[in-house]
């Protein structure tokens, strides 16, 4: 019974994305299967070389690249949102699978969380 945690809020404007990541990592820490999906403005978490300290916040780049080691099954990003925000293989963090947020994708998950 896998959970999909959807990150649909952009970074830095509030803590919604961080608190979504905490949920995903907690599930993984308790050996519950979880996948992360970035969509809408949330795909902006995935841009390389962000300097979070410029706004006195912590970067999540290391957490995201370590996600598979911590037990997160996959990191996915909605393909339309990536296109909209100019994200591609060159400027996006490695290890992200692009996909389409649609009913067929959600079918795989018994539990879907979208902090919004």
């Amino acid at each position, binding site marked *: 019974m896998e959970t999909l945690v959807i990150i649909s809020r952009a970074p830095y404007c509030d*803590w919604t994305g961080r*608190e979504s990541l905490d*949920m995903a990592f*907690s599930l993984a820490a*308790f050996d519950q299967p979880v996948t992360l999906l970035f969509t809408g403005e949330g795909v902006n978490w995935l841009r390389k070389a962000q300097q979070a300290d410029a706004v006195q916040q912590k970067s999540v780049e290391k957490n995201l690249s370590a996600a598979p080691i911590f037990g997160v099954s996959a990191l996915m990003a909605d393909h339309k949102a990536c296109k909209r925000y100019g994200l591609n293989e060159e400027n996006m963090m490695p290890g992200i699978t692009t996909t389409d947020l649609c009913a067929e994708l959600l079918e795989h998950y018994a*539990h879907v969380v*979208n902090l*919004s």
Partner: protein
Amino acid sequence: MSPHTPCSFTLVITGAPYSSQAPQTALAFARAVLANGHRIDRVFLYGDGVHLASALTSPPSDEVNWSQAWQDFLESHNIAGFACIASALRRGIVDQSEQQRYELPANNVASPFTIAGLGEWVDSVAHSDRVIYFHGGG
């Protein structure tokens, strides 16, 4: 699930009172859950929802005090209410033990809410029949 099988629910509230309608919608839903013979395993406050656990809210007398309404509901039905520790500490919702730990000037978590970790939420995902989220932004 057949309509007549009692279900267990966890309600997750991520919207704060007065910044959202989440506490009101969630409370009406919670009352209907019990009235229809189902069970509430717990209420879990996350993100801005932790403000619902504050003992210091004092709205005008002609407005509903959502924190008080939830405290009364949880007490009268003996339902556990948790405010997630990480969300709560960031937002200044603190119990006596966290007040001591961080040497803060006061504490403000209203009984019967208690501070807990995300493990309570993970337990809901694993064991409650339904986990229903009441977000802000609505």
